[in-house]
Each structure stands twice: as C-alpha cells, then as structure tokens.
C-alpha cells in the first residue's frame, strides 16, 4: 500500500488533469480547479516545512560559529524582520515595503546585473578558436552581434544590382540554421516531456517516490 498507494493516487489525479484538457465538461473543470486549490494548500503546508528547514540550517551554523556564520545571522534576521513586520503592519506599510523597495529589489537587480560580466567572461572562453566548430561559432557570433548594431548596416556588398547588408545575414543565421536547431531540440524536449508524463501516469516511472517504488 505504501508503494502502490501514491502511484495509484498520482495516476488518478494525472488522468483527471489530462482528460480535462480534452473535455470542456464542468465536472472535469471543477475537478481541475479543486486539484489546483489542493496544490496551493499543500504548498502552504510544505512552505512551513521549508521555513523550519531554513531556520534549522542557519541556526546550526550560528550555534557552531562555522565560517560565514554572520551570513546565517543576516538570513535569519531578515526572515524574522520581514515576517514580523508583515504580521504587525501588513505588507502595504511599515518596514515590509521599505525593506522590499530599498533592500530586496536592489539586491535582486545587483544579482541580475552580474550577468553582464558573466556573459563577457563566458563569451571569452567560448570564442577561443581551438577547433573548426569553435571557429564557426566565433564567425556566427561576430556576424550576429555586428548585425544588431547600427555599424552593421554600413557593412554591405553590392551584387547583381542589390545591396546586401550584414543585418540581413544576421537575421538569416537566426531565422534559418539557428531556428532549425532550436526546433529540433524543442521536438525532442516535447517528446521527452510527454513520454515522462505518460510513464508517471502509467506508474512505470516511480524513482521520484524513493526506495521500493
């Protein structure tokens, strides 16, 4: 029962969700909405587990004064301050909106801005020409990047009475070979997703349940 119960339950719920896609009947739609509501309840309850896990993780680091313990102190302090503030004053006034606007949002923007530097360092590594494929990648990258800036429009050739500028080649690279490869990956991903979902529905894939499944 411990092994088959979750599999049967998962299969039943999955079948309802699958059938709901093909049937507009209100009974199935109500079942679909009920399952989504149940999922929200489960999420809320596991969020409590998550917070307990987070506090335990950082509390043990604080207790043992492991290296970087002050980061754990910052994490627990932030959790306590935001939770307490939202409980006492709500999320529209008090410390919560101020902390969100002046601490959390700038920190998120800072993390996002790291991407600019990481793209540069990753590009430097990727474009080192050590093989034919790397050379091809470099050439395509240069064409696409130049084609996206105003300078690219000035790089053009006249042929057969027509002017061919770099942005056109850039667009062709993105619209033809790149898109073809992307679609090939997407077809494979789509098939993989459907196959994995079917395996879960049919109870063939049970590794996510752990031992004995």
């Amino acid at each position, binding site marked *: 029962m411990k092994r088959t119960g979750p599999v049967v339950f998962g299969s039943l719920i999955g079948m309802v969700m699958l059938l709901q896609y093909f049937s507009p009947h209100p009974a199935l739609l109500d079942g679909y909405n009920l399952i989504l509501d149940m999922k929200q309840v489960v999420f809320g309850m596991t969020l409590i*587990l*998550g917070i307990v*896990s987070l506090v335990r993780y950082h509390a043990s680091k604080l207790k043992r004064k492991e290296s970087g313990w002050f980061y754990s102190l910052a994490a627990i302090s932030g959790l306590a301050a935001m939770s307490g503030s939202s409980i006492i004053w709500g999320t529209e006034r008090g410390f919560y909106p101020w902390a969100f606007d002046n601490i959390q949002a700038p920190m998120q923007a800072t993390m996002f801005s790291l991407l600019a530097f990481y793209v540069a360092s990753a590009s430097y590594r990727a474009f080192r020409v050590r093989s034919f494929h790397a050379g091809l990648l470099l050439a395509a990258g240069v064409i696409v990047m130049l084609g996206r800036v105003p300078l690219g429009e000035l790089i053009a050739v006249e042929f057969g009475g027509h002017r061919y500028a770099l942005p056109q080649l850039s667009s062709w690279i993105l619209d033809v070979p790149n898109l073809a490869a992307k679609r090939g990956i997407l077809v494979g991903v789509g098939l*993989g997703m459907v*196959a994995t979902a079917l395996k879960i529905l049919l109870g063939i*894939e049970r590794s*996510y349940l752990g031992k004995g499944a």
Partner: protein
Amino acid sequence: MTGPDAGMDRPGAGRTCAWNRIATWRAAALLLLLPAAPRAQGLAVPPPPRVADRPNDNGRALVLAWDVPDGAPPGLLALLERRDGSGIRDTLQAVPALEPGAAERKGSFTDERGPRAGGSYAYRIAWLARGDTLWSDWSEASEPSIQWFNAERVSVAAATLLFSGILIGFVAAARRGATLFIRKIPGLEAVEEAVGRATEMGRPILYSPGLDPMEEVSTVASISILGQVARKAAEYETRLMVPNRDPIVMAVAQEVVRDAHAEAGRPDTYRADDIFYTTYSQFGYAAAVCGIMMREKPATNFFIGKFYAESLILAETGNATGAIQIAGTDSDSQLPFFITSCDYTLIGEELYAGSVYLSREPLLLGALKGQDAARVIILAVLVAASLLLALGVYDLRPYLD
C-alpha cells in the same frame, strides 16, 4: 399580456422594470455620446437574430448571428437583449452591427455571461441610431448544451493515443526481455567520475534541481537523477548538498536522498540538513547557491532541471571555484550558457533519459525506445511535408477528394 413586454407582472418583474430603465438610460447615454451615430431612416425592422449553441464548450455560451441590410450606414450599432425562461430580461452590450473587415454583410456576438446549461434563452436585436431604436421580435428560445469532448483537439488526442500505444508496445517488448540499445551520453557517463572526484578531494557535491515546482516534468526528471546521484554519493560516503527553491521539491528530495542512502546500506550517513530550502525568490536562490559554492567549495556541481536567467550566474560561479560541472536542462534559451560554462551538458531530451540511463531499468529503457520510435514518425512526417511544400502542394484536401 403577450409580445415583447410579456413578463412584466411575473416575480422579478420589479427587477425587470429596473433593468429595463437602466437599459433605456444606457441606450440614451450611448446615443448622446455618439454624435456621429447614424440615423435609422430607411432601415427596416431587423429580423430576430439566429441563435446557436457554441460548440466544444461547457454550456455557458450562445452565439448570435444576424444579417446587416444593404444600405445600412457604416458605424451602425446593434443592441442586444436576452430573455431567460422565467422572463427576466437583460440588455447586453452594443456591438458594431457589421463585423470589422468581414467580406459578407453579417454580424455576430457570443454571449458568455448569462447562459447556463439547462436554461433556455431568447434574444432580440435593435439597430441603434439617433432618435430610433428598431427592435426585432424575439428569437426562438435556445438552450446551451455541454459537450463531453472538445472536437478542436481531436488531432492532439489522436497523437496522444498513437504515442501512448507506441510507448506501451515498447514497454511490453522490454518486459518480454527484448534487448534495447541506447547510445552513450557523455554527461551521464561522467556522473560516476564526478562523484568519485568529490570523494577523492574530500569536498561535497552540490545538486541543484532547478527552479520549477514539482509538477513540472523537468523537475521530476531531475529528482529521478538525484536519486541515482545520491546513491552513488552514499556508497562513497560523500556529502551531498541540495539547495531548493520550492518547499515541495525539498520535501521530495529529502525523501529520495534518504531512501537512496538506505538502499546503499548507509542510512546513518544521511543528513537531512543538507537538503534544505533557501528562498522562493529567483535571484535570492541564485545568490544563496553562489554563496554556498564560494564558501563550501564543492568539487562537483550538478545543475539539472529548469533554469532561467540565473543559469549563467550559477554556472560561472561554479566554474570560478574549479568544480567539475554537469548541467542538464530543457530550457533551450539557457543551454548555450551551460554548454559554455559546464564540462558536460545534457541537452533537452537527454535530461529525460537521465534516470533511465543511470538505472538501466528494462521498462524505462522500453519507454525510451518508444520515444525514439515516435521521433522517427515525426521526422518522416516533417520530411514528407517539406517535400510537398517544395513541390508547391500547400493543401492536400483537393487530392483527397
């Protein structure tokens, strides 16, 4: 009392009266606000609209259609009114009488707010113009009906059944003991080497199952691979850290890792605190994982699952710490970043083949072969369609007739 005003003395008639007054004032306001509204001179009283059930729905809509007479001025508006079985009337919105860009002089409207399955509804239409409102007679009562099957999705249903049949066929073949071959996947071949490296260096393994919640297929695939990685880590007694963005994923990961340790005969080496929740914020999660990588210096990083903009931040930070990195995602937009910064990358469907490849379970192998067979069919259809398009054939229906 009969005719269009029947029902005035029924229960709810007070509401009907109030609604009628509101409707009249609404219509008057429309006329005042539309100084360019055409005059209705020369237009005949419209016939009742044609009412039909909207197909492939849950019985909560009716479709109205009408013809616009020749000579109707441009910009003519049609006002619609509904009457239910108990006589309660409701004025619907005013819509352009002629559908914009329509080749024929027809108009239509879908009433989705009032109709319910089991009820019957009649409608009438009026040409709305300055000084005149020409109401039609009431149409015949129509009943919206519930359909059990959405016929617009029959092709998806057929494809799903075909694919399921192929999958089940290959699973049955695997159950009978057929030998099934799958090609080498370098990223998955390197898992054992990566875990061994962490063991030799005495440093932990970091496993990120992605940012999506548990109901996403990529996360399920990631958790399946986590079970295999956790088992190897338990055999080598190497610490495995799994930071999570979703609490449900954390709960599932804890269960899977604990059972993997038990299966490897090392239940005492399981540390629940190593599979923990960080934050639901996307970049907060990225910052947390980057901090762990910089402080704990794991020897091996696994980024398996669904990732978004933070993928490059994670991969580059891990690269800077000198860890061997194995990534796998079905996000096509993040694949280039992982390919650049990681030692091995599972591209697209290789992620879904991961748990099959590592476990070599016959039934799962059969399902994987079924997937390949379906891909061959899709390829054949694509090649045939491309050839037909190259020959200038865009529509097969004339040939089938």
